[in-house]
């Protein structure tokens, strides 16, 4: 083998060894996420490792491809324990996307469905911490815009890739849809009714150890409150998802 060819081969091997960026994803570099809900005695920041994230939410077109390959996830084929009867309610039938909405985010999908979709792509749902970190929602520049969106009743959906990418190169984290996360069930916001009754208080192992770190962050609070209200088979007209992926060393 001639020397230049050898160098080329070595270079190529080097490239392959470092994991290439999967199509449609960007890398979110490791950092620290300022915890919204922190445990008693927990540090204010939690480390987040680098991960890949879908640039856009999963679209109707993407999802149609998935149900064609995985017919057990077609509309009406899914048992209600995995998705309530409103699953894919906007779709005219099992293999038809609403006209002209191919690039709209898929909505009315359950957590179980979202997980299976990501799994089928060799991906996974993001954790709460990863989602919040990648959404750059602690950036005060976003706060007003986010609240304005939350305040709009029944916002009309549009196609993905609205506006500009955020600092990580990710689109649509705010202003389009709400998104499933893997550990949505880890968000427990206690109702007032619980606080007076000492027995009920004790029903939560370690209750009182979780509290909002900064209640002023109202938009963030709304996202956490929404997550705490969900169940795995719930679907709503503005709840979709995107996937993440571990970066193999």
């Amino acid at each position: 083998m001639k020397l230049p060819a050898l160098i080329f081969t070595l270079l190529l091997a080097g490239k392959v060894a470092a994991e290439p960026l999967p199509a449609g994803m960007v890398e979110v570099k490791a950092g620290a996420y300022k915890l919204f809900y922190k445990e008693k005695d927990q540090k204010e920041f939690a480390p987040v490792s680098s991960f890949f994230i879908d640039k856009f939410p999963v679209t109707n077109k993407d999802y149609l491809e998935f149900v064609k390959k995985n017919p057990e996830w077609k509309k009406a084929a899914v048992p209600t324990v995995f998705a309530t009867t409103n699953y894919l309610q906007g779709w005219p039938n099992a293999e038809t996307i609403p006209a002209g909405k191919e690039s709209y985010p898929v909505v009315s999908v359950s957590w179980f469905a979202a997980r299976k979709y990501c799994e089928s792509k060799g991906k996974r749902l993001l954790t709460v911490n990863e989602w919040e970190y990648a959404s750059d929602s602690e950036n005060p520049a976003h706060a007003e815009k986010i609240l304005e969106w939350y305040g709009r009743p029944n916002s009309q959906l549009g196609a993905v890739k609205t506006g500009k990418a955020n600092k990580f190169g990710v689109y649509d984290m705010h202003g389009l849809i709400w998104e499933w996360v893997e550990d949505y069930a880890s968000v427990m916001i206690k109702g007032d009714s619980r606080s007076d009754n000492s027995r009920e208080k004790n029903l939560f192992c370690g209750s009182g150890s979780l509290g909002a770190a900064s209640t002023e962050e109202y938009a963030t609070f709304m996202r956490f409150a929404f997550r705490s209200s969900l169940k795995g088979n719930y679907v709503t007209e503005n709840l979709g998802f995107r996937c993440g992926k571990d970066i193999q060393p």
Partner: protein
Amino acid sequence: MKSFGVAILLLISFSAQALSPNSVYHLQGKWTNQDGKTEPFANLKGRVRIVSMVFTQCTSACPMLVGDVKHFLSKLSAKEAEKVGVDLFSFDHERDTPEALKAFTKKYKITSAQWNIYRGDKTTVAELAGLLGVQYKRLAGGAYVHSNNIILLNKEGEILKTVEGYDSSAEEFLALLKKTLAEP
């Protein structure tokens, strides 16, 4: 005679297939009990069950929960009680080995073969919690914060009722338990 046999076979295979859309036994995943026996979740089908999610190093909610389940069982006749399965599923996929589960049964004087406590992997735990509507969070120290749901399943695996411990709707839970036990 032959066609009769075929009809019986068809009937058997049909009833084995037809799972209610509301049945939790659609869930895949395997669980290992305190004796180290591993089985698919769906094998629990066919018995009325009281289920809950715990972890063995839990100090406050879980002991109360075991007490609440025992209390429910104490309200049944002996004949009713023997038909109920009690199944506790651990959140703690890291620390709850079959040995730890066994120690838990000893600590809480659980001797009946009707009671089982299981461990599963992280995904299996997440999916079951999603299905049962149980909220939980792993704390930095390895303990869990969790809602304290006690869930009544009929033989088909449909959720009939969920209570948070022995609360105000416990009477309703008990009435439903008795009712479903009376069914053939």
